[in-house]
């Protein structure tokens, strides 16, 4: 698999290299880009149908910012209220501690089979392999997650994790793993087969685990949103339910959650709301409910005023769908569990290849669609500055960027060379110049050179 290549050795070329692999199949790239753009269009229609859309974005942003600036207080309130509701609360400073806590709970109940509902946090902590190594069977129950789990792949998108796979590939996989008919690729047939297979898993599971979309401080409740109902089929059958949440998931009250519920699905898939938005405020009769509150680098991000704003994110995936780089380079080209603009925002610090901060054109489309106004392009730009300050610019940039700076700052140098470039473009054949344009020229014609510089044109035409 392409994404399993040794990327440490390639350093800052990792994103470009992996994107190149993805781009070899041009038809697939077009298909991928179009599939995601379809989501963006649905999002636009849903947003456009609400006159108060911009007001909701502003409210979402301010609610999250308010909560983040008082996070310690809200987390403590949340914990107290959970305890009062009979919910057990655990705190984990990193992924390792999170996994250990989960395993301890499961082991003490002698759990053999765990049904899991999509959670990017457990992906971030690499929970599945940890539990599997300790003899616990983990079944991902979101259809897209189950597909990639059977294919032994990580998710390539945070909302539609198997978006990179074609239905024929899913058909082959299900034939192999679930015994569906060979050559069958009808989504309805395949979904029904998965439904039957997963029902058996829900009914035979000893425990269920879900992520958390919002944690309501003043009620001590967690909100879990799915379209398939897998989180609720899971959590409400076995007597043991676990919920993992990042410290950034807490909101003050139900009114705050209501604001975010109005934008989450609309911005993700264009639906007015997810099919199921479930509120758990305690375990079922004779059951046990655990909430694990996880830091895993989030408090570190909060020490930087700009990076801290990425914690406003509600994981709708809207920024991925609109991103021209994500759509044409695929989720596996990013060196992080979460791809796309938000993946760069929360992952660039830990990206030891120093490549993903550059997997962005700074076009700002992500910031424009974000339902909580996370300033993604500003954050990504900031990451580049941090990389430069740490002396970790991609190969070459360290050497030539200071020269580019000097060059751009000198009027004489700039004017002379631009003049030379214009002349060259006019008189020399394209085939001779094209190699100098590098990757830019791969799919483009060289520009037609204007007769004079803008400065000369301006001097001639300006009104005095």
């Amino acid at each position: 698999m392409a994404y399993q290549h040794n990327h440490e050795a390639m350093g800052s070329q990792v994103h470009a290299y992996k994107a190149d692999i993805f781009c070899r199949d041009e038809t697939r790239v077009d298909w991928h880009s179009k599939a995601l753009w379809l989501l963006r269009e649905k999002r636009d229609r849903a947003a456009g149908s609400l006159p108060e859309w911009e007001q909701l974005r502003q409210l979402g942003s301010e609610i999250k910012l308010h909560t983040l600036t008082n996070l310690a207080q809200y987390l403590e309130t949340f914990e107290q209220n959970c305890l009062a509701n009979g919910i057990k609360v655990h705190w984990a400073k990193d992924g390792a501690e999170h996994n250990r806590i989960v395993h301890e709970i499961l082991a003490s109940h002698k759990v053999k089979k765990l049904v899991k509902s999509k959670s990017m946090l457990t992906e971030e902590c690499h929970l599945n392999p940890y539990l599997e190594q300790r003899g616990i069977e983990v079944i991902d129950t979101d259809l897209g997650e189950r597909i990639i789990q059977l294919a032994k792949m990580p998710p390539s998108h945070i909302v539609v994790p198997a978006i990179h796979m074609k239905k024929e590939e899913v058909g082959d996989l299900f034939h192999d793993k679930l015994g569906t008919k060979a050559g069958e690729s009808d989504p309805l047939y395949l979904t029904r087969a998965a439904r039957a297979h997963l029902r058996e898993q829900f009914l035979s599971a000893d425990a269920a685990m879900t992520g958390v979309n919002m944690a309501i401080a003043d009620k001590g409740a967690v909100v879990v949103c799915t379209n398939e109902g897998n989180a609720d089929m899971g959590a409400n059958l076995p007597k043991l339910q676990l919920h993992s949440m990042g410290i950034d998931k807490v909101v003050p009250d139900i009114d705050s959650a209501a604001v975010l519920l109005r934008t989450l699905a609309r911005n993700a898939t264009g639906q007015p709301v997810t099919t199921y938005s479930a509120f758990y405020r305690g375990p079922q009769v004779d059951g046990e409910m655990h909430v694990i509150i996880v830091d895993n680098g989030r408090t570190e991000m909060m020490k930087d005023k700009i990076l801290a704003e990425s914690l406003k994110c509600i994981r709708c995936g809207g920024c991925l769908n609109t991103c021209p780089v994500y759509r044409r380079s695929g989720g596996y080209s990013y060196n992080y569990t979460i791809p796309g603009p938000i993946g760069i925002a929360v992952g660039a610090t830990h990206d030891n290849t120093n490549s993903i901060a550059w997997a962005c054109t700074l076009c700002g489309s992500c910031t424009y669609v974000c339902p909580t106004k996370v300033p993604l392009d500003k954050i990504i730009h900031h990451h580049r500055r941090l990389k430069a300050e740490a002396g970790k610019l991609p190969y070459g940039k360290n050497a030539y960027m200071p020269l580019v700076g000097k060059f751009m700052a000198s009027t004489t140098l700039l004017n002379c060379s631009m003049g030379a470039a214009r002349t060259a473009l006019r008189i020399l054949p394209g085939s001779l110049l094209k190699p100098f344009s590098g990757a830019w020229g791969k799919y483009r014609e060289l520009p037609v050179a204007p007769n004079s510089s803008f400065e000369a044109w301006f001097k001639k035409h300006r009104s005095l």
Partner: protein
Amino acid sequence: MSSKHEILNALKLSALTNHPMPSIDVAPRVEDLVGQFETNLKTVAGTLHREGGLAALQAKVDELIAQGLQVISLVEGVTANRDVPPTAHELRDIDYAVIPGDVGVAENGAIWVNNKNLGHRVTPFICENLILALPIHKIVPNMHQAAKEVTLDAGEFGVFIAGPSKTADIEQALVVGAHGACSLNVYLV
């Protein structure tokens, strides 16, 4: 030091300065609430039955039973052919569950269901098909109003249900009926 205190201490180093909580004051659209609700319920693949109330619902249940289907009812005044079993797992062969809805939301077609009326929490998810009975005067314009109306006492479970279970995980083709109910019918009562 416990992880809890480590996390809370680390938060003291946060670079964010205080930001006030905004007041949530969004103008509701109050005209034709039932019409709005019906349109949005249709968008999320649910069906609204406006006329006939409980009698129409009972007639539907009788028809289903006559077809040999297994129906459970938690709505007062509607009689079905199956009782709430002692364990949740025994609901696995229920074809239709009839459940009371507490609050309907016009802007998105969602209905709040509370576990006080479910028998088992899993009832609205495990049934093959779901029927909700919603009092007509319980339809509110949007989620902000709904948040004020819903009851969620300590220890409880509640869920907004907007349509039948669905997925678009295979090449984005919308398929109704993933893990939860394959259809949703709402009767106004």
